[in-house]
């Protein structure tokens, strides 16, 4: 019990004293996860919209693969990315292993199916008659996509929340492809694992609290935007 209490007290000290290492790890986590989410959003929404709007051979199989990807274990993603980026792997020549780029790639692969799957579902749930009405109003294909995405903005915001939430809190892939190198690839989750294994519970708890606050804040902002959109 003392251990936990001491850990919590130390955590608050670290938080309020503004430990530079704590804030560096926090900032780096945000940069990596925001970058991965942004790229996933661009690719996932674009491809998801095309899949949602079109009918082609093998579409169902593709959607089932995307849905499977939504539940892909981060360690498996980490393993696959490691194999590809390893010195002797297909992309070894780019020397990306144990760099932030490798972490962004891994997190992108984790969040992509989530955002793509949500996009496909949200585009499909729009009444086909509404699509016909938009066509009848004289919309070009691009105008149609823009209007449909506007109509589907609430589930799309949920997609962003789910995508960001899945990668800011994952540890397996970041550890495997980033290597948890101090000052270079250490993020909140990998730092928590390390501090925990060292018995530095105060630091681990402090980082855990920050991680929870970050996840909460990002979701709070998106929820406010989502609910405001709903009222509009």
């Amino acid at each position: 019990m003392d251990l936990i209490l001491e850990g919590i007290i130390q955590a608050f000290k670290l938080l309020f004293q503004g430990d530079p290492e704590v804030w560096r790890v926090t900032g780096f986590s945000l940069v990596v996860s925001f970058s991965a989410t942004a790229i996933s959003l661009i690719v996932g929404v674009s491809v998801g919209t095309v899949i949602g709007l079109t009918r082609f051979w093998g579409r169902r199989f593709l959607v089932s693969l995307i849905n499977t990807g939504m539940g892909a274990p981060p360690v498996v993603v980490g393993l696959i990315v490691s194999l590809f980026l390893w010195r002797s792997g297909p992309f070894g020549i780019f020397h990306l292993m144990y760099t932030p780029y490798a972490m962004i790639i891994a997190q992108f692969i984790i969040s992509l199916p989530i955002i793509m799957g949500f996009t496909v579902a949200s585009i499909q749930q729009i009444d086909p008659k509404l699509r016909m009405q938009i066509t009848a109003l004289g919309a070009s294909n691009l105008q149609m996509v823009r209007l449909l995405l506007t109509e589907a903005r609430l589930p799309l915001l949920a997609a962003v929340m789910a995508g960001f939430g899945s990668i800011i809190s994952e540890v397996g892939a970041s550890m495997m492809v980033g290597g948890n190198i101090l000052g270079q690839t250490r993020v909140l989750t990998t730092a928590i694992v390390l501090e925990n294994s060292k018995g530095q519970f105060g630091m681990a708890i402090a980082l855990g609290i920050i991680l929870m606050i970050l996840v909460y804040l990002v979701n709070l902002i998106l929820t406010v935007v989502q609910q405001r959109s709903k009222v509009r």
Partner: protein
Amino acid sequence: MMRNTIAGNNKAPDSASALAIELKDVTVVLGGKKIIDIPAFKVNSGEALMIIGPNGSGKTTLLQSLALLVKPSTGQVIYRGEPVHDSRQILALRRRISVVFQEPLLLSGTVWDNVTLGLKLRSVEKDEIKPRVEKWLKRFGVIELAKRQARTLSGGEAKRVSLARAFALDPEVIFLDEPFTALDSPTRQKLLEDFESVLRETRVTTVMVTHEHNEALALGDRIAVIMNGSIVQMGAPQEIFTAPANEEIANFVETGNILHGTVSENSEGLATITIGQHEMDTCCELKPGNSAILLIPYDDITLMLSNPEDHTTSARNRFPGKVVKMFPTGSQMRVMVDCGFPLTALITRRSAEEMGLKEGSAVVAAVKAVSIHVISRH
């Protein structure tokens, strides 16, 4: 069945330029099933054409083919003399027409956003958008709702907004797919009146699908009847409702009694048709021995209380009978009479009261020979 037409002109166009849209040998196959098969179909500029037909007959598919929303499996759509080919042409043509669906199908955003949307999509000048939208929101009585969220509107309000959205586009042709359904009777009636006055004012070419015969009668210059994917009759409303081309249409338009008989005599166009034990004089060209279907409009039957011999009347057919059932329909009374064969008459409620009609009353049903539409039965 007197009516005023919207354009007041039932004349067929005498040149291709008077044609707004034409279908040639158009079929639409969906899921392996032929939904419509239309060898020829023409919509004249400035007319209000109503499409009626039973459920599942292909009305909506026909409308969507005309509105370039459904691509025909075979055949050609010709818009103002120009065959429609590629998707760029289709987009350009879609921007010259507008469509109102059964549901209002408003997007998220305000009423104003919705009514301006089509204009923005069609790249209408900004300065032009505001007056146009204001004009049509006012015209349909929803200007005060401009700032309201479109999805918070009542059914009637939403329909008005969808009509304003369609007319604000200043279309060359407006297509409407049962636009007044799912509304309560007073709301529907008021909207119908407003819509009718807008049509009279704009004289825009109109193609409308409806299952309400009264709407077709009130709004249409011509009516097309579609059954099982084919146009079975097309003509002036009067013609469709009083002279349906076959029994199926007569049953569908349901404006009169349908009786079956055999022509027993025909003298210079005045034919006597035997119906069971009874004979009925009609005006037709069928020859003795021909089987015939007789359509007697409900409102062309006169009911009398006393013996017909007491009255001098020009009606050639007089059948004594007994009232078996009476029920009111609006301001009128539907009276079913057993004359040895069933006849239903539509009379005013006041007449029924003054005659003291009740179930069991002895009456005489009189029908003029010229009121009976006779169809040859094959």
